[in-house]
């Protein structure tokens, strides 16, 4: 039954993601200006409920004052003969509100469903909340403290917290979601109107997180898609500013943080082989691993793939290959778990990693640069 209703509602509800430019909803007595595709829908619901509320409020209070004035006590004659009950009336004002709230619920439910249904083509930004600040990470590895989003494109925030509960609230977008340590939460929105110049939307933390709670606000800038793309690339260029000479020592550790989840430096294998075991050759390393040919990649074992003793011409070539299409050759004893970093790592970044692998002795087990021993 409910499913039926919800399905109907879903079909009748506008597809927020792809509907054309949503207009800015105007600032009114209650609500601030709305700048996302949700604002339209949301403000409409809010206003509708408000009108219903006005009606009932004035009905109740009006009647109250009228009766108080009309039936005020006259003299000391106290006994008043009013009806003590009227079943029809009472059933009436039990049932009518019930129907009303059912309708209200479904209106709100519709809005909620579209807020919870992330479009497939949403642009993902990873958010890390931490007392008392936000860190926004873009797919190309660029990071920023304020949030920049492309206009007219659904944006999905994947959020996690480093310490306590936070809550990301962009009031003009009418979106809010707690950020819970130990779990990923997401929210999405689509802002169609770029913010001009110094304009921005407020981003608040709305879950109490300590002394700096009220300072945990940032700005949200909506850029036209083209500008955004160039901005995010520019933001991602931190690497280029590092001179070749100290490339691996400066950039290496920062990049390695992304690898550290699977690769260690001290010889203990994780999901992937440990860099510590890399013999610096072009050999697919750890060939002697006991679990020989254990792992099949679409039916072929590793040795089938490259054959005994086959080598890359250069170690660099090998490393580069295993970063860009990692599952082409898999080290014995490991599974095809590594995602490709094609398009995420620039050549310079890969050079930095290669440099790091060549000078492992200058890094500690955590990947911090310690210099020549």
């Amino acid at each position, binding site marked *: 039954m409910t499913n039926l209703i919800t*399905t109907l509602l879903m079909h009748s509800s506008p597809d927020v993601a792809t509907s054309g430019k949503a207009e800015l909803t105007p600032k009114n007595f209650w609500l601030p200006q709305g700048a996302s595709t949700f604002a339209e829908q949301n403000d409409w619901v809010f206003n509708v409920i408000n009108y219903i509320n006005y009606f009932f409020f004035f009905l109740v209070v009006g009647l109250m004052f009228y009766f108080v004035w009309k039936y005020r006590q006259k003299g000391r004659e106290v006994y008043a003969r009013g009806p003590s009950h009227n079943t029809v009336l009472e059933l009436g004002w039990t049932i009518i509100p019930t129907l009303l709230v059912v309708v209200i619920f479904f209106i709100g439910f519709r809005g909620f469903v579209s807020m919870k249904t992330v479009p*497939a083509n949403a642009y993902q930004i990873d958010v890390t909340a931490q007392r008392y600040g936000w860190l926004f990470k873009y797919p190309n590895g660029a990071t920023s403290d304020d949030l920049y989003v492309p206009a007219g494109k659904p944006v999905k925030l994947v959020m996690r917290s480093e310490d306590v509960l936070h809550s990301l609230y962009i009031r003009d977008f009418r979106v809010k979601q707690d950020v819970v340590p130990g779990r990923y939460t997401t929210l999405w929105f689509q802002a169609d109107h770029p913010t001009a110049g110094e304009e921005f939307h407020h981003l608040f933390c709305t879950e109490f997180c300590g002394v700096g709670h009220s300072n945990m606000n940032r700005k949200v800038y909506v850029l036209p898609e083209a500008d955004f793309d160039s901005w995010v690339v520019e933001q991602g260029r931190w690497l280029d500013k590092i001179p070749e000479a100290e490339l691996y020592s400066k950039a290496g550790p920062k990049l390695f943080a992304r690898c550290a989840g699977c690769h260690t430096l001290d010889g203990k294998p994780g999901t992937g082989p440990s860099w510590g075991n890399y013999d610096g050759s072009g050999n697919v390393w750890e060939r002697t691993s006991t679990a020989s040919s254990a792992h099949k990649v679409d039916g072929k074992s590793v040795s089938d793939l490259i054959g005994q003793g086959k080598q890359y011409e250069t170690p660099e070539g090998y490393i580069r290959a295993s970063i860009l299409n990692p599952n082409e050759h898999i080290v014995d004893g490991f599974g095809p778990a590594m995602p490709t970093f094609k398009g995420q790592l620039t050549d310079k970044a890969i050079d930095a990693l290669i440099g790091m692998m060549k000078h492992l002795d200058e890094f500690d087990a955590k990947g911090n640069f310690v210099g020549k021993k």
Partner: protein
Amino acid sequence: MASHAHSSHDHGHGEPHPLVGHLVPYSTLFATGAALIVLTIITVAARYVDLGEANIYLAIGIAVVKATLVSLFFMHLRWDRPFNLMVLVGSMLFVVLMMVFCMMDVGQNMPTENKGNPAKVQQYLDANAPFAPVTAKK
């Protein structure tokens, strides 16, 4: 509501004081005790035969039976005012309520906990947004 159960019962309950409580024959008490011990031995024994999933259900089942015995005979509920039984059962219903709601939420949320593979988490989040299939059609 609450009153009806006990006060109606009250009527048939007209003996002069102080015969409020009910006298449970020794035989009944000892029989109950024996049954409880036997059930305990059975449930312990059942632990050593591996019935897979069934083990836990068996254990819980036996526990429920034992609990019922204790409350009916040791605690006189079999003869006591129905309202007292209502109090006990009612309170248990609220525990069940709490458990059901909490478990539903936990079950829904588990995949979003980042002890799991975030890639999987992402797939889950994209796939399992409420009523995703419906929107997917568009």
